[in-house]
């Protein structure tokens, strides 16, 4: 158990519910576009918001394998749900992106790189597993021999306002992946929402200078040790509530050594190769490009899109698909996520957010599939 001296709480403040709107105003005043959870089409998604009324007040989610449904809470919590179908990747690594344009000229053509998006954005309501996912994509796009400059610009212009989880969904397993439920690093401001019978307030953790600047004019008061303890109780409760788990012990070698396990045929009989899991996964980064010309044939462009390893033409050799069967595609996806990702980037590609479980139309559960591979596996 950690012990805390008085200095440990210097960065912690109390913000009453009535003052929360001022946080969003402060972000707007500081010229951030505020992106936050909001409700659309019966799900909690991430989009630009204007004020606190856009937040999903008093909503929770019921998530199971192949199932996602919003339901009312018996309080007015602003962050009383887990993650929905969107992740922050749609802003940092957008689904569609112009890379460059080319224009024909006498004797050839010129290529002009697309301008980079340098808008300042504040992500409000980033969960611990989502910070882990962002840090995983940082390794892909920023830590290798090549740098994705567009990603870097978007990342550097993003302010992260995290929210500690109090009520995990039944699909969550971040404890197994050591990514949550408590936010530990990688944020500018972290918020813990605390609701009791007679009071609704937030414990605000201002970790860095960017966060502190935004918080300067808010009606805050020191949280003290009591505030810290109240905030820790929220995530401790979340941790206790989490029922799903994934045994990661030896998983890296286990999956790579069991490419012929009969469970791959079993899961292939259920998998529709629909690509939902890769679309909702906050770490899946694969893309393809399309080259177009306009009708004149004088102007061309290259556009990058998200792609999925469940697509038939994803891996080709000599113009023919390599992974012809659903079995080989599911195996590629899960083995990459839980095993070869570690070889490539020094971390698992899974953060335990459970999106792939909830949004799989066949209800395929990555934790169950990994457990089934473990049964009767080659060592």
């Amino acid at each position: 158990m950690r012990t805390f001296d008085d200095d440990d709480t210097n960065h912690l403040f109390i913000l009453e519910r009535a003052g929360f709107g001022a946080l969003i105003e402060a972000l707007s005043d500081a010229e951030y576009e505020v992106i936050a959870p909001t409700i659309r089409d019966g799900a909690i998604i991430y989009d630009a918001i204007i004020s606190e009324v856009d937040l999903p007040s008093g909503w929770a989610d019921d998530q199971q394998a192949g199932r996602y449904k919003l339901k009312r809470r018996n309080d007015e919590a602003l962050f009383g749900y887990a993650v929905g179908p969107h992740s922050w990747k749609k802003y940092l690594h957008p689904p569609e992106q112009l890379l460059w344009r080319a224009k024909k000229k006498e004797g050839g053509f010129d290529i002009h790189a697309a301008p980079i998006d340098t808008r300042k954005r504040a992500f409000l309501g980033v969960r611990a597993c989502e910070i882990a996912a962002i840090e995983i994509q940082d390794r892909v796009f920023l830590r290798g021999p090549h740098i994705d400059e567009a990603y870097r610009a978007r990342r550097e212009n993003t302010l992260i306002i995290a929210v500690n989880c109090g009520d995990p969904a039944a699909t969550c397993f971040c404890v197994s992946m050591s990514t949550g439920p408590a936010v530990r690093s990688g944020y500018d401001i972290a918020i813990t929402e605390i609701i009791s019978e007679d009071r609704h307030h937030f414990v605000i953790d201002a970790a860095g200078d960017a966060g502190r600047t935004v918080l300067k004019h808010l009606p805050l008061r020191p949280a003290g040790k009591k505030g810290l303890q109240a905030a820790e109780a929220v995530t401790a409760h979340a941790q206790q509530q989490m029922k799903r788990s994934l045994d990661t012990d030896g998983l890296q070698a286990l999956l790579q050594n069991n490419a012929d396990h009969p469970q791959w045929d079993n899961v292939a009989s259920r998998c529709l190769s629909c690509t939902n899991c890769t679309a909702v996964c906050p770490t899946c980064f694969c893309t393809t490009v399309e080259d177009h010309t306009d009708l004149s044939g004088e102007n061309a462009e290259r556009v990058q899109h998200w792609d999925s390893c469940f697509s038939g033409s994803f891996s080709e050799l000599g113009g023919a698909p390599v992974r012809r069967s659903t079995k080989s595609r599911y195996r590629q996806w899960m083995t990459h996520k839980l095993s070869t990702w570690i070889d490539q980037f020094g971390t698992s590609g899974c953060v335990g957010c459970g999106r792939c479980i909830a949004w799989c139309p066949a209800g395929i559960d990555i934790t169950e599939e990994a457990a089934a591979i473990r049964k009767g596996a080659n060592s």
Partner: protein
Amino acid sequence: MKQGHHQTHDSIPAIATVKTKRWEIEGVAIIDVKLSTNQRAWAQSKPGQFAMLYGFGVGEIPISFSTLPSAEGRVSFTIRRTGAVSAALTRIKCGGVIGMRGPFGNGWPIEQLAGRDVVIIAGGLGVAPLRPVIDYLAFGRSDANRATLFYGAREPAAILYTKDIERWRNAGVDVHTTVDTASHDWRGNVGVVTSLLSGVPLDSENTVALICGPEIMMRYAAEALKDAGVSDEDVWLSLERNMKCAIGFCGHCQFGPAFICKDGPAFAYDQIRSNLFVREL
């Protein structure tokens, strides 16, 4: 990040002008191009590396250097016309312009060839990525002990680089060719390329092998060398998959834990052997 920054240069093609084009064999063209800019960076390219070649408005494909970029930015590529992009690239006339990104990949382990017997095994168009390394062994400042080329093609008319083969022979490279099928007037070898291996004595301890061709041929060749006592660490294979970015971002070229674009395309057999036997990996 300040305003006005643009995408990483790794994803923006350089412009190159086609200087010569000839059909080496039916359906396979050799284009010789000259880069307009940044010749110095390209001149650092190594044998076995590749470039992404862009046909205007059509798309981009990975093509290995078949001669390395010179200090003046001259470089050649051997392209088989198969899909839309290769058709566009081989349709271009002299003076036409293409886009070109690179150099990408690790290339052959040139630094490990000194003092060794170098065995090169090529199948079909797989001879193209090997051509700069054979040139290096034949005409460059190589300290390799000796060089042997085993080259298999589908039929006599599909043998590439016939003039180069003569130059390589004259420079002391031991060249053996074979074809899968031939008419009765063919006086050379017939059979798969691995069948040539048994006819030539190998100093297995001192051999380094470089292999490029269809995956199944590379697997048989690597296993034959293994049986002959050559260490898996000394057998190098150049793998191929479709690629979109060539810099480890798009994910398409994954082969188990490896990204072929940045970890390869050349891999020592011990790194990839088990995965080469997994179907649909």
